[in-house]
């Protein structure tokens, strides 16, 4: 009778294993036990590939709302929303001229919640552009680009460019009049190096502008080739680039010692609260063979990092809170405002005015004088300038404080005045009196390329910034002034381009004054 017993026990074991299987799947998926104590939660964060992008513990300074305003997280949240809604839209969207337009109509009218999803997608994309710009401003004003975070600032710039590229590439996809002519304008700007090569008479031999446009459009005109290219950039290449850059961006925050904070942050925060518990014990059972590459002079053996709290749940509540708040804002906007869809694209009927997406309207304002300077020259100068900031400002005074550094808030206030004043002044002048081309129609384009409101404004801001460097004997002071000025100039030009430009790019106080054609 022994054989059946053995069989019985084997079967019993099998059944028992089967019974235990679901629990064991969970156990093996989440090693280290359920995240119920600080220790197991920490282990949970540490051992999870996605959560591992966070550090296990978060400094209390980072959790203050005024530290970051949650802007970076909001950008990520908005990206997540566009990702989800975008994938849903891809089920119905057909990237072929005319058919594309019909498919958007289908999404709008018959796909269940299609209109809502498209609206969310559109609003989340706009929210993302705004939060990315504000996030950059936050990082700048709190000195977060300084050592050791210089390179993360550069990655952030990459993310900014990718975000704008994503938004712009999505603009063409509905294939309506708005899309068609915005992309026509945009790609004409890409062709603007011809302004220089034409003036030099070498376009025939060397035509980087034409090449750029050709690469963007895949053809001489905005057509089926351009649509499939923009689609590919929009749904595949740029999202992957953005996801990769974002992962590095987040990971480097951790590697660079968490979010920026003032050197005396601990003192200012006061004593840790009662729920701030050290997780580490005084009996390390490790040998720290890799301690040589850990930052700092000594490993924090036996010492709970002061003023930090476990990321789970403290940081996670903040993150989820921002995610849901961003979702709430996008959902609310999506319910009350439909994403635009104009008439089917018609290459024979130009939109007048044909406007690029709003975040490029500041540039389009400058393009009116020189396509090259407005579309390529000045943006390049600005990007190079932004990228150089962390390598020119090697100071440490004021790091982690809003508007910290020599000059501080009073300087920024003054720079706001200069930035707004200079840009409004030059715009008012141009709107009232015209520019070189109006005064002397035969003037060589190279002169206008060199001397136009955009270059003069850039020059004025630059001179002001040099003045600040000398006055405060600080690169940070110059950077504060320059960055503020550019932010103000960007705002002024964007607002004028968006609200005050009518047919033929003429200034009007209100669209009601536009001439009827």
């Amino acid at each position, binding site marked *: 009778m022994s054989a059946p017993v053995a069989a019985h026990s084997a079967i019993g074991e099998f059944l028992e294993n089967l019974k235990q299987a679901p629990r064991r799947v969970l156990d093996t998926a989440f090693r280290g036990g359920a995240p119920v104590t600080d220790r197991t939660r920490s282990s949970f964060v540490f051992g999870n590939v996605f959560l591992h992008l966070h550090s296990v513990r978060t400094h209390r300074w980072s*959790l203050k*709302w005024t530290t970051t305003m949650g802007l970076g997280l909001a950008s990520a949240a908005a990206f997540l929303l566009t990702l989800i809604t975008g994938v849903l839209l891809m089920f119905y969207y057909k990237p072929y001229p005319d058919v594309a337009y*019909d498919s958007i*109509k*289908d999404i709008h*009218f*018959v796909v*269940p*919640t299609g209109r*809502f999803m498209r609206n969310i997608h559109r609003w989340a994309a706009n929210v993302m552009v705004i939060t990315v710009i504000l996030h950059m401003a936050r990082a700048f004003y709190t000195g977060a680009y300084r050592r050791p975070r210089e390179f993360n600032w550069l990655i952030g710039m990459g993310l900014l460019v990718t975000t704008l590229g994503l938004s712009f590439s999505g603009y063409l996809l509905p294939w*309506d*009049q708005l899309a068609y002519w915005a992309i026509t304008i945009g790609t004409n700007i890409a062709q603007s190096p011809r302004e220089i090569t034409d003036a030099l008479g070498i376009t025939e031999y060397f035509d980087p502008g034409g090449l750029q446009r050709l690469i963007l459009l895949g053809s001489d005109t905005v057509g089926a080739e351009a649509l499939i290219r923009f689609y590919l950039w929009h749904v595949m290449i740029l999202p992957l680039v953005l996801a990769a850059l974002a992962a590095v961006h987040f990971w480097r925050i951790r590697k660079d010692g968490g979010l920026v904070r003032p050197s005396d942050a601990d003192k200012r925060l006061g004593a840790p609260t009662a*729920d701030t518990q050290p997780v580490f014990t005084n009996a390390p059972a490790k040998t720290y063979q890799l301690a040589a590459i850990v930052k700092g002079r000594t490993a924090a053996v036996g010492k709970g990092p002061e003023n930090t*709290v476990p990321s789970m*749940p*403290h940081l996670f*509540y*903040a993150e*989820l*809170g*921002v995610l*849901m*708040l961003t*979702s*709430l804002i996008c*959902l*609310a906007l999506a*319910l009350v405002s439909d994403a*635009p*869809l*104009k*008439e089917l694209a018609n290459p024979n*009927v130009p939109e007048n005015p044909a406007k690029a997406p709003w975040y490029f309207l500041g540039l389009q304002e400058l393009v009116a004088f020189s396509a090259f300077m407005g579309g390529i020259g000045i943006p390049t100068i600005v990007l190079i300038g932004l990228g150089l900031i962390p390598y020119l400002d090697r100071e440490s005074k004021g790091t982690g404080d809003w508007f910290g550094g020599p000059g501080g808030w009073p300087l920024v206030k003054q720079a706001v005045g200069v930035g707004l004043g200079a840009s409004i002044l030059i715009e008012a002048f141009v709107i009232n009196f015209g520019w070189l081309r109006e005064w002397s129609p035969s003037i060589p384009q190279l002169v206008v390329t060199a001397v136009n409101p955009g270059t003069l404004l850039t020059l004025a801001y630059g001179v002001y910034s040099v003045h600040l460097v000398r006055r405060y004997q600080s690169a940070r002071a110059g950077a504060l002034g320059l960055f503020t000025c550019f932010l103000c100039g960007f705002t002024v030009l964007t607002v004028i381009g968006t609200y005050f430009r009518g047919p033929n790019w003429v200034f009007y106080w209100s669209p009601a004054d536009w001439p*009827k*054609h």
Partner: protein
Amino acid sequence: MKKNKHLLLGSSIGCLVLLLMAAIEENFRKQWRGIQAAGQNDDGPISVQLRQIVNPGLRHSDRCISCHVSMGAGDANVTGARILRTHRPVVHDPAEYGCTICHAGQGLATEKEDAHGDVQFWPSPMFPARYAYAGCGACHTPLDVPNRDLLGRAKGAFERLDCLACHRVDGRGGTIRPGGGGMEGPDLSRIGIAGYKTDWYEKHLELSRKAEAKAAGNGPWKNSFAAVSEADRRLVATYLATLVSAPRLIEAKAVFHSTGCLGCHKVSGAGGDEGPELTRAGEKDPGQLNFVPVPGKATLDNWLAEHFRSPGSLVAESKMPALGLSEADIDKLTLYVMSLRRMDVPASYVPRDRMNAARFGAREFTTDGATVYGVFCAGCHGLEGQGRRAPGMAAFPSIANSDFLSRVEDEFLANTIRSGRPGRRMPPWGEKEGGLRPEEIQAVIRHLRSLGGVEARPDSKPARWVSGNKEEGRQLFAASCSGCHGAKGEGGEGPALNNQVLLSKATDTYFVETIGKGRRGTGMAGFEEPSTVRRTLTRLEIESIVSFIRSWEGGKS
């Protein structure tokens, strides 16, 4: 941490509420759901679902039947609400052709406002019901449409001859008198498209004779048909050609053919170049038009009607004169211009009439002189040939003037029509330039003669016979003629005389007679006749003036 927890809780609840709202909107508040919920067929309530007509051949899909349910295939018996009722019987069954192909509007839309298309960014809203026939123009080109007068007479003949006793046309007629049932003859509503045998008259006559010969009985053919004059038969044929199931469009086109619009505008290749081409004028996007001076709603029909009343106030720098049309005519022209559209349909769907017009030179107008004149000439020279004066423009000559017609030969008229008057607004209408065929030009000349009531007086003299004193003529011209015709004959109040086409085509007799006898009804008085206000010229003096005028010939004018 508490703050963040509250933030998370608050915004999560907010998101849930908004998602719930969106779900309610999506599932319960759609217009068509409510409409379909009221629908019944023989089996009870119909299923509530999005419905659409798809015509892959036309590459068209319309969701209009999500509300207008019984217009879809297999749903003809759905009842319950007015909106659910069936379409009245038409040639193009909506269940097959869809809706927007005729009615315009936005077929992909599922809400009333969007679908009917009076919304921002939809370029082709639905035609209002009274202009519904404009929709035919998307694919069809009605051919052989006479001018209004001829259409009226043709229709009158058809009714006078009592054809409606047996035949039905557009829902009228087909009741046989006396006794007997109705509709012995076929419905003729579409005979203009379907065509008919040309021996119909002989057949009718024969059948009628046979019935009479039988003597007994009271069959429908007995006493119901009698001989019809050749002229009446021509009128009937003219009328039958216009029967295409679109009577209002035909009436509108007949008005168009009496207004002379093609004198300045081109429609599908025929017409002048002075004004913009109108081939697709009905496709104008209301969103792109200036509605500031237009009373009423911002719709294309309102805009077009106001444009006919006062072109200059709607289109800056418009050269079109206000035509002083009646409101009834304006309404008809509005309908016709709205019908000027071109839908992109696969070749197999292009109807015969458009194919004939586009490929085989079929005329949209009948080629009788009056209609050709109405189509091309009436705009400037007036429907009666009385000429037209419009502010800011040189006067358009009164070409039916009997003094004028009595002095010119047909060849001169034909030449003028063929070659036009370079330098003036009269364009050349020859077959290559303006598309008028020689026989059409001859028909117009015959019509002109009938308007003026005069034949050309035969002229025994050669074209050039005058040999006066040029110097004397110069002085006389300066004194008596230059006031109206300009010092160098360049024209002013009166027409230009240094025009090379005029000089080469007009005979000396024409000049001498016109100067001597004048042209009644115009400012040109006869200079041979005694007058208290101007110098009387002798025949010799007139010949001197003609010699002087001739001296401009060949030179630079």
